[in-house]
C-alpha cells in the first residue's frame, strides 16, 4: 500500500478516485497496518483495450476441434437433455469385438477406461475409478435397453450424472453403442491388473515432494530472474517498474495473496496476469499481454514475492460477492461435448483417478499458480489452466481475460482462503 503517486500523464483510463480514506503517504499507521481497511489507492489501469491477443487463437498443439455447438462458460448452446430413454434401435446387433475396441478408444473423448475399470478392456491399463467398476456388469441383470440408454445419455436415469452423453452429443452412433453394449454383456469377471499401480483403488494419491523453489529443480524459478531484469526495463515512455516500485521485495510482500480482485472500472475481476497487462500499458506504455512469456514471468515473480503469505481475497464488497456468486454458478455449468462442469470433477468425483490423473479438490488448487509444467516445459498461469480444462472436455475455451474466468478465479480463491502461496509451483 505504498503507491503514493497518481500518474496523470499518459494514462488512457478515466481515473476515478474511489471514495474512502485520504491517502496519507507518510502516515506510518496507514502504511504499516495491513489488516486495517486498505487506504483506497488509485492504481493506474488501462481500461480501453483487451488484455490478450484478439482474435483469440487456440494454442498450436491443442486439439483443433470447434465445439461451438456446445456450452462454454460464456454462452449456452448444448442441446437439452432428453426426458425419456430411447427405444432400442431396430435391426442393429452389437459386435462385442468391435465394442471392446471402442471402449478403449482414447480418440473419442474417453476412453471409457478414463472413469471405469472394465475387466480386460484396454489391457486394464491404468483405468480410472471416477465411476463404478463394470468388470462384472454382464452379471448385473441389466437389459440391453438400459445399457444402451446409459451410454447414449445417462441423464435419463440420473439427472446429476457426470457421465458424458455419448450418443446425444454425437460422440458415438447407435451401431457403436450397440457394439459396446454387446461387449459389456461379456464382462463377468473382476479385472486382472498387471501391476498394483494399474488398480485405481490401490494406487496411492500423488504427493508433490519436489522443492519448487530450487532453481536446479524447478525451471519455473528462472522466471524470477527474468522478471527482475524486466523490472528495470524502460517502457515506451521511459519509465520502468522500478521507477515507482524501487523495492519490490518489501512492497509486494503480500499483494499477490490479495488477488484476484474485483475492479469496478472494468466491471470484472482482475487476476494478477491481467493486472500486469493493464497496469504496464497504462504506466509505461509496455505491452505485456496475457499468456506471453513476459507476462507469465512477471506473474511468477509477483506471486513469488508474496510466498508464504496466506491467501486473503476480498469476498465481502458488493462487487466481489456478486462475482463469487456468478463464479459458483459457472462452476456448476456443464460445458463442452463431454458435458462436464468444474464441480463434477473437482467436487462430486474429486479425489478419484481419471485414467492416470488425480482429480483434486478446489482447496489447494490455486496457491501454486503460476506453475511450471514438466510435461510441457513451460509455465502455466491459472487462466491457461481454465482454458485447457475446457478444451480437454471438448468445449471451446474463452480468451484469458474473459470476465467469466475472472468470476471463476475469484470463486476459486474464496475456497482457498488461508492457503499459503508457494510460487512457482512444479507439476506434471
Amino acid at each position: 500500500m505504498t503507491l503514493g503517486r497518481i500518474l496523470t500523464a499518459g494514462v488512457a483510463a478515466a481515473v476515478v478516485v474511489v471514495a474512502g480514506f485520504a491517502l496519507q503517504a507518510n502516515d506510518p499507521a496507514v502504511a504499516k497496518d495491513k489488516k486495517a481497511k486498505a487506504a483506497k489507492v488509485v492504481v493506474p489501469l488501462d481500461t480501453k483495450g483487451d488484455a490478450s491477443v484478439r482474435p483469440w487463437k487456440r494454442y498450436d498443439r491443442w486439439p483443433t476441434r470447434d465445439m461451438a455447438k456446445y456450452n462454454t462458460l460464456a454462452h449456452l448452446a448444448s442441446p437439452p437433455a432428453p426426458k425419456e430413454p430411447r427405444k432400442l434401435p431396430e435391426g442393429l446387433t452389437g459386435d462385442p469385438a468391435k465394442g471392446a475396441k471402442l471402449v478403449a478408444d482414447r480418440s473419442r473423448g474417453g476412453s471409457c477406461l478414463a472413469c471405469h475399470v472394465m475387466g480386460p478392456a484396454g489391457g486394464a491399463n491404468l483405468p480410472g475409478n471416477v465411476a463404478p467398476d463394470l468388470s462384472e456388469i454382464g452379471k448385473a441383470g441389466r437389459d440391453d435397453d438400459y445399457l444402451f440408454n446409459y451410454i447414449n445419455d445417462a441423464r435419463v436415469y440420473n439427472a446429476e450424472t457426470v457421465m458424458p452423453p455419448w450418443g446425444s452429443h454425437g460422440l458415438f452412433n447407435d451401431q457403436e453403442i450397440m457394439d459396446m453394449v454387446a461387449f459389456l454383456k461379456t464382462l463377468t469377471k473382476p479385472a486382472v491388473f498387471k501391476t498394483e499401480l494399474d488398480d485405481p483403488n490401490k494406487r496411492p494419491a500423488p504427493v508433490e515432494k519436489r522443492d519448487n523453489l530450487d532453481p536446479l529443480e524447478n525451471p519455473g524459478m528462472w522466471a524470477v530472474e527474468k522478471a527482475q531484469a524486466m523490472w528495470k526495463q524502460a517502457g515506451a515512455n521511459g519509465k520502468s517498474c522500478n521507477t515507482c516500485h524501487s523495492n519490490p521485495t518489501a512492497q509486494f510482500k503480500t499483494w499477490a495473496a490479495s488477488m484476484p480482485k474485483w475492479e469496478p472500472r472494468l466491471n470484472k475481476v482482475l487476476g494478477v496476469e491481467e493486472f500486469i497487462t493493464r497496469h504496464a500499458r497504462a504506466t509505461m506504455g509496455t505491452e505485456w499481454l496475457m499468456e506471453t512469456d513476459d507476462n507469465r514471468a512477471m506473474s511468477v515473480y509477483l506471486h513469488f514475492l508474496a510466498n508464504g503469505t496466506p491467501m486473503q481475497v476480498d469476498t465481502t464488497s458488493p462487487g466481489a460477492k456478486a462475482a463469487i456468486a456468478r463464479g459458483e454458478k459457472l462452476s456448476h455449468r456443464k460445458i463442452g461435448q463431454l458435458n462436464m462442469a468444474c464441480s463434477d470433477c473437482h467436487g462430486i468425483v474429486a479425489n478419484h483417478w481419471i485414467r492416470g490423473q488425480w482429480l483434486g479438490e478446489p482447496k489447494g488448487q490455486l496457491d501454486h499458480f503460476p506453475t511450471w509444467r514438466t510435461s510441457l516445459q513451460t509455465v502455466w498461469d491459472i487462466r491457461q489452466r481454465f482454458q485447457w480444462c475446457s478444451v480437454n472436455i471438448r468445449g471451446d475455451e474463452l480468451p484469458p481475460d474473459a470476465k467469466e474466468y475472472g468470476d471463476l478465479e475469484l470463486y476459486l480463491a474464496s475456497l482457498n482462503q488461508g492457503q499459503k502461496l508457494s510460487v512457482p509451483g512444479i507439476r506434471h
Partner: protein
Amino acid sequence: MAEKPRLKLPSEAKKGDVIQIKTLIPHIMESGQRKDKEGKVIPRKIINTFVCEFNGKPVFTANLEPAIAANPYIQFSAKVDESGTFKFSWKDDDGTVTTAESKITVA
C-alpha cells in the same frame, strides 16, 4: 545460445573432502525425432558435451546423446585437495560453448 547455467557446489571444503556438484543448463535439447505440424522433422539441436575441469585438470566429462531431456541436469562428485576454480563448459551441436566457473577454498 543457451541461457545462464546454474551450479550448486560448496565454496569451502576441507582437504580430502568429496563434494557434490550439481549443474543444470537451460537448453531445449531438440532430439531430432520430433515433427512439426506440417510433418517436417524438427532438426536436432542438443548440448553434446559437458566438461568439468579443476585448476586446469579434467575432473568429469560427459557425451550427451539425443535421449537426454531438456534442461540437462548433471550431478557428480569430486575430491578436493587444494583451493582453486572449477570450470564447466557445455558444447552445443552448432559449436557454441557456454561456460561457468566456481571458486572453492580448501583448508
